């Protein structure tokens, strides 16, 4: 009897941990989707998350309003993405090199600013968190109560953004243009649409989404900024994007799965029942990466947009 209760409590708790850990992954993956569907590779998600996380904490620290922090995170992510867009879209630079540069820059910049603003090397001062949304009536229900009773509002915003992204990508003219820009930019150009503008918007969106993901990590999940605090989540988001086949629903499912693995890890480190697994935590962490390699190796078809990675040069008109 006691064991059953424990399992129920644990299941609810694991569900909650899944939501909590998958939110940043899904958000960043959705952002990456907008960029890559327009045909611009964005491996800089990690950097944009990092800068979003930092700006969110800094803005909250100065204004004491976490919602302004969220705005700052989104804007700073989009700004960094703007640099990526200028290099890749306007100057047709190498997208992977630029993305690597974005990651390096964000790592250096946030660590530097950490020292400038707070005068510390590791972790910033604690700031106000975004308060959780507490739903009183369902708190007593066994599994759902633990899972949904008290979640960050950004988790719900993530759900909304998944649906919105799906709608925008498949049901609006803009979404069709995004798809066309990644599949056949020449045709889009022939139809009289400015390919460069669509691509720039895609990259900016990816920055905004990643910035939001970073802000979630720093002022909704935690309440401070730590040096390089994203610890590779941008890359896992990239993995979720590929595993999810560059679609919103796929990103959501893959992100949730990887988030579940993350939550499981979390459970293992703090729940004594799982203590025997502690030694193998690293292997659980490896799982998303291995799965992506397996998926790409052909167990499951994953088809990237056709024109991905190649800058679009308008042909000279006669």
């Amino acid at each position, binding site marked *: 009897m006691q064991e059953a209760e424990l399992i129920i409590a644990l299941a609810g708790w694991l569900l909650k941990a899944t939501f909590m850990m998958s939110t940043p992954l899904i958000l960043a993956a959705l952002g990456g989707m907008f960029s890559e569907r327009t045909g611009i590779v964005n491996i800089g998600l990690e950097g944009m998350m990092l800068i979003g996380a930092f700006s969110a904490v800094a803005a909250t620290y100065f204004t004491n309003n976490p919602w302004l922090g969220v705005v700052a995170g989104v804007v700073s992510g989009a700004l960094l993405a703007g640099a990526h867009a200028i290099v890749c879209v306007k100057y047709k630079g190498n997208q992977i090199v630029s993305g690597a540069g974005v990651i390096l820059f964000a790592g250096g910049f946030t660590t530097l600013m950490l020292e400038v603003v707070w005068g510390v090397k590791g972790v910033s001062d604690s700031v106000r968190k975004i308060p959780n949304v507490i739903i009183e009536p369902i708190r007593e229900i066994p599994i759902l109560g633990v899972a949904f009773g008290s979640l960050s509002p950004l988790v719900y915003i993530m759900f909304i953004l998944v649906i919105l992204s799906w709608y925008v990508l498949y049901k609006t003219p803009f979404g069709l243009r995004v798809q066309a820009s990644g599949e056949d930019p020449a045709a889009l150009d022939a139809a009289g649409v400015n390919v460069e503008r669509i691509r720039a918007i895609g990259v900016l969106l990816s920055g905004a989404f990643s910035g939001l993901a970073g802000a979630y990590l720093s002022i909704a999940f935690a309440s401070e900024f730590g040096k390089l605090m994203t610890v590779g989540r941008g890359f896992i988001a990239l993995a979720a994007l590929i595993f999810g086949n560059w679609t919103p629903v796929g990103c959501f499912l893959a992100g949730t799965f990887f988030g579940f693995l993350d939550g499981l890890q979390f459970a293992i480190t703090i729940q004594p029942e799982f203590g025997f697994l502690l030694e193998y935590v690293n292997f659980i962490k490896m799982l998303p*990466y291995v799965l992506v390699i397996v998926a790409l190796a052909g167990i499951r078809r994953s088809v990237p947009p056709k024109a991905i990675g190649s800058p679009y040069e308008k042909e000279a008109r006669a």
Partner: protein
Amino acid sequence: MSSENVEDASSDEDGQQEKETGTFERLRAVFERVRRRLPDRQYWKPLFWSLGSIILALLVSALMLTIMGYNIIAGFEHLIRGALDQPDRIIQYATPLVLTGLSVALAFRCGLFNIGPEGQLLIGSMAAALLGYMISLPFLIHPLTCLLVAALVGGLWGFIPGLLRAYRGAHEVVTTMMLSYVAILFTQYLASGPFKEQGPYQWISQTTRILDTAELGKLFGPYAHWGFGVAIVCVVGVDFLLKRTVLGYEMKAVGLNEEAAEYAGINPKWNMALALGISGALAGIGGAGEILGTHRRFLDGWSGGLGWDGITVAVLGNNSPWGVLGAAIFFGALRAGGNRMHQIAHVPIEIVGLIQGLVVVFVAAPRIIDWMGRQSVESIGWIRKDTKKAIPGLVVLGYNLFGLFLGLGLAASLIPVNPVNAAFPALVGIFSGQAAYRTLARQETNIGLSLVPATAWFGAAALDAWFGGWVFFNTALIMVIVGSITAVIYWMMQALTEQPQGGAE
């Protein structure tokens, strides 16, 4: 044949002219002849891009440091001095960077982007660390064995994504990155689990110290070790591979055009897999060299992103082996000097990472550098052609650039004290920057370019006096006066140059 004759004839003509004209012409002819011997102009372009991005990155980071309120002059002075004082440090930092850079560069020459040298480096270094204390071998043979095995293990870590790319079409950017994380987690597990050093006071995740026989000796100074010799050998080897062997030729052919290479009878798949394999091996050697030469054991997280830096190095070195060597030494110097700058001028060491990121972003888009190069060539032509207009233009440019730094610096120092008041100098700084851009990019010279910033400074001074209590009033007033004087001088020059024209009409 005929073209050679023509060239001979033309040089003969040059010779005749030499006799007729003075020393200046003769010098020019010599210069022409030297220039003809040098490689094509196209050959120098990558060097120009690299240097341009370094300069641009340094400028941007200097601007950022100013905004953050650091003393950049002292900072850069100690950066350069620190680098010149400790050549052994430079070599120590450069050694792994040469190898990870070569790793990325070689793959790139075959058209592949190896973005996971970090994992290949770690897995190779783990192999070397384990062999270093588990088996005992005589001097010289022991480190060589370790390096060889590290190369094999690292090579395997590159060969797998290579095979997947060649035969299953899995994109190597993703697979190498993912495998890199697998390696990071796996070595972490090994260092904290099965191969953790045992002992009563042992809590750190590290392996046992390697045996003395496995160590790489010191090259010179307290830090530089023989790993650098290994790195040089690898540079020469990769250069030889790419320039003098059939395999290298085939790899380059695949990198330039896969389909054409296949049509010419080259097997692109095998070449791709092999290129990534060798690439991984190089990174593995880099990791092993660091373990055997510097750390002497595998310490969890010892690398700190050396693999990532390899991408920077390869990109800056334009993927050529000797370019990689140069770029690695540059970044080594940046780090060696960065430490000194941190200790003495208290500029955070993280600025090195920032500069690295900026360099990569700028190298990614050579068109930005090209554009700036064209602009400066045009500007020089403009100064020569139109001196009377250009010189006041340059004075205005200098004034505005100084205003940009001053405005942003003032704003930064004011933010903690009085954030509202900081907005005024920041705005003026942006105004000045915009004016400077207009002079540079569009070669505009009109009186407004110095008058508008001067007015803005005046406005800032007035607002400061009104709201903020005379914080930077004097500085702003000086800027107003300098700006006005510049404008007056400009106007006078303009009037002087226009008068004769009016007279002629």
